[in-house]
């Protein structure tokens, strides 16, 4: 794992065109998923403001899908909120991991916290140095927030024009985004690789037996496979 030691803030981060292109692609894919979220919610009978407001203030794709799914299935608001919260517990661990990337200013902390998602954390941690890490977090964070919310609104207003997004293989694109972003860390550190593989095995083994979203947390037991640093 790369060192997370901060250097004194130096030159403004160069806008790496490759980073911009990669973030743009994830924004596009996220936007398509967002519009399908808006469309599904409205097609299921929820008023337009429900998916739109939920996206703005909850801003967590998997939790939003499961919460709306439960609301539409008649599972009740309590179950919807509880399931969503369970899914989002991981953001606490992510927030701790990228805290120094976000920055120290009051505004940065409060705005940055809301932008902590699987993708922004993966983009940030995939960068080589602290300056780039910070740039990657904020560029992907603001870009994804804008594209997700605009597309949820669009999808909610337009309805199910996109049809079934599984046809485009989008459900495989998101795990692949994470593969591409964590692979450098896995490649360079056998210790972290062992922990991650053990954790993934635990998560997969638990999936049939526990509620959706829960298996990811016990994956942290994979950290027991880390050796103490010499």
């Amino acid at each position, binding site marked *: 794992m790369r060192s*997370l030691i901060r250097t004194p803030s130096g030159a403004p981060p160069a806008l790496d065109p490759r980073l911009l292109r990669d973030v743009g*692609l994830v924004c596009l894919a996220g936007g398509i998923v967002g519009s399908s979220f808006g469309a599904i919610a409205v097609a299921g009978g929820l008023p337009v403001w429900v998916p739109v407001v*939920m996206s703005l203030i909850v801003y967590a794709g998997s939790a939003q899908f499961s919460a709306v799914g439960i609301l539409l299935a008649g599972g009740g608001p309590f179950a919807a909120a509880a399931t969503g919260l369970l899914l989002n517990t991981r953001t606490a661990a*992510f*927030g701790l991991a990228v805290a120094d990337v976000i920055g120290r200013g009051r505004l940065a902390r409060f705005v940055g*916290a809301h932008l902590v998602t699987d993708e922004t954390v993966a983009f940030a941690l995939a960068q080589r140095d602290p300056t780039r890490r910070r740039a990657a977090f904020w560029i992907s964070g603001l870009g994804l927030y804008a594209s997700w919310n605009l597309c949820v609104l669009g999808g909610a207003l337009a309805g199910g024009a996109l049809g079934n997004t599984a046809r485009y293989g989008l459900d*495989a694109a998101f795990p692949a985004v994470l593969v591409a972003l964590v692979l450098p860390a896995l490649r360079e550190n056998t210790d972290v690789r062992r922990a991650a593989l053990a954790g993934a095995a635990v998560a997969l083994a638990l999936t049939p037996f526990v509620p959706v979203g829960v*298996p990811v947390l016990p994956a942290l037991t*994979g950290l027991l496979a880390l050796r103490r640093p010499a």
Partner: protein
Amino acid sequence: MSATVAAILALAVGTYAFRLVGPLLHGRVELSARVRHLLSSAAVVLLVALLATGAFTEARGFAGWARPLGVLAGGVLAWRRAPFVVVVLGAGATTAALRAAGLG
């Protein structure tokens, strides 16, 4: 509808609270190098667990072969250091092609 509003608010407030823990603690609590290494490792472990469950499972069951094979194609491309765009589009295209060919 007010119960729905309450559910959305509870989910929003709770999620934001989770997210705020790290940024608020930062600079107030001095973390040792060991703990910081653990935290960044934990993020990688969680991301890998997410991608594994995302690749293989859907609603507590198996997602079908098309999706994990697409992710595998993306993984092979990433391993061969293909550009990010190629990895992501390759995974999606593989899964879409397998589905079009009738694989679940």
